């Protein structure tokens, strides 16, 4: 493998890393705040992908611009789902297999409904930049991926700033670190949970919009995605945004190399093998805490 080839693969991996990080960050945020593993996260991303796709097909709306639609729509959808499904549960039932089964069922419902309306045809948006590439010297950057990763990293930084500098963001961080203490200082933990869930799905909404031109999608694809994203957050440490960021880049770059050497059908394996390795070596993930709450 020549240096140029190695660099090229590295570049391909990096340009995808940001997008994966965005997808994983919504998931890990929700877990961090309320200990819910949202198995439906990927299926909700695909909902956003369909919204984006339809907007592109019917109104020529650029998929990247569509995030201005998908983010608020998915935020509201997420907050609503939280209120409907999780808010009514007593807090001790909250942590446990019940929430997993609930989000699992939710994923099925979303998949079924999407399949009914859109059928199982493989879809993908194709704005000009999806097939275009920026080239310099002998290396090239797929333009669509490049834009997507920039936006993703930008959104993650925005999220970080929100959590660090705003009153609501601080309240959410407090809830993530110690829900009892948050209550004691007067944070409305229920409300923060709802907002955090909405934020998580909102971020998924942005990711979905970009997914629409980066990958092909169909209703059933979310299982593959969810497996990858869940493995990512376990690797990074469940509830850790930094972990999601670092873990994503590490794994997408590794997967790019696996794809180069063994072929693209083997590259998803990277994520799952990494999961089992991290469980063997450091079960709490790279940046995770030793013991979960319950």
């Amino acid at each position, binding site marked *: 493998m020549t240096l140029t080839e190695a660099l090229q693969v590295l570049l391909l991996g990096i340009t995808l890393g940001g997008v994966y990080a965005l997808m994983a960050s919504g998931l890990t945020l929700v877990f961090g705040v309320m200990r819910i593993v949202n198995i439906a996260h990927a299926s909700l991303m695909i909902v956003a992908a369909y919204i984006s796709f339809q907007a592109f097909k019917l109104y020529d709306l650029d998929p990247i611009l569509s995030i201005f639609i998908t983010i608020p729509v998915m935020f509201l959808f997420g907050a609503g789902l939280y209120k409907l499904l999780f808010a009514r549960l007593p807090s001790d039932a909250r942590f446990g297999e019940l929430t997993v089964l609930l989000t699992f069922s939710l994923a099925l419902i979303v998949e079924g409904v999407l399949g009914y309306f859109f059928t199982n045809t493989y879809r993908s948006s194709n704005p000009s930049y999806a097939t275009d590439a920026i080239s310099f010297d002998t290396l090239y950057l797929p333009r669509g991926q490049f834009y997507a990763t920039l936006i993703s990293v930008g959104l993650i930084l925005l999220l970080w700033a929100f959590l660090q500098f705003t009153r609501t963001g*601080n309240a959410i961080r407090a809830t993530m670190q110690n829900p009892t203490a948050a209550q004691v200082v007067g944070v409305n933990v229920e409300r923060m949970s709802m907002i955090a869930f909405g934020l998580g799905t909102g971020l998924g909404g942005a990711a979905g919009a970009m997914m629409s031109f980066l990958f092909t999608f169909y209703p059933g694809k979310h299982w593959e995605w969810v497996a990858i994203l869940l493995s990512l957050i376990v690797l990074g440490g469940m509830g850790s945004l930094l972990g999601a960021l670092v873990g994503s880049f590490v794994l997408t770059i590794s997967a790019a190399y696996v794809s180069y050497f063994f072929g693209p059908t083997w590259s998803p394996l990277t994520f799952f093998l990494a999961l089992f390795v991290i469980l063997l070596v450091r079960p709490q993930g790279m940046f995770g805490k030793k013991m979960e709450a319950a």
Partner: protein
Amino acid sequence: MLLELENVMAGYGSGPNILKGLSLRVEQGQIHCIIGPNGAGKSTLLKVICGLLRPREGTLVFKGEAIDGLRTDQVLKKGISFVPQDRSLFPDMTVKENLRMGGYILKDRGRVEARIEKIVEMFPILKERSSQQAKTLSGGEQQMLATGRALVLEPELIMLDEPSMGLAPKIAQQIFESIEQLNDEGMTIILVEQNARKGLECASWGHVLDLGTHRFEGPADTILNDPRIQELYLGKRRQNHQEGQA
């Protein structure tokens, strides 16, 4: 009378009542110490007062207003603060950020900052460790931080659940001294202590809880020497407990 509880019943989830008709009076300007065996409901009592747990029956009146059923942020606004048993700090936030969170319900940042300044004068070690993460602090420092955080809102009544727990005697002594100092400045204090002696030495009035009810009360120094305490903590009480419980 600053705080009055009348016949309060409370429990967790769908479980049995922990508080079984508890009535209690807290006088302004005093340090009240609540003691009692495990399971008596001491921590539950504090949680009900500050709104972490809704009472199932009974009334709570603070400065003439009913506070039963209020949310924690509403109770905080009325002037009651709470320092939980395990200190309940935000481990990854710095000392400064933890203190700021104490003022969460106040929108006036300036007032919060001014108040924090005063608090770190009282606990100088916090100023030293201002940008350190809360989880790196020692037990005593954490207790000071938790107490300081509760003081940001300038409460009239502050409740501390087992402040000396897990602390070396010398550090615990420092904590009690700061509690007395707060009282000298006019604050009313409710103290729950497993270590009856330490708590009652610091307090002016003592309450004894058992099995979810308020058994008896009196001046702190007389309570300590009351023979009924012996009964409560050893032998005789256990026998009654077995006969009395289903």
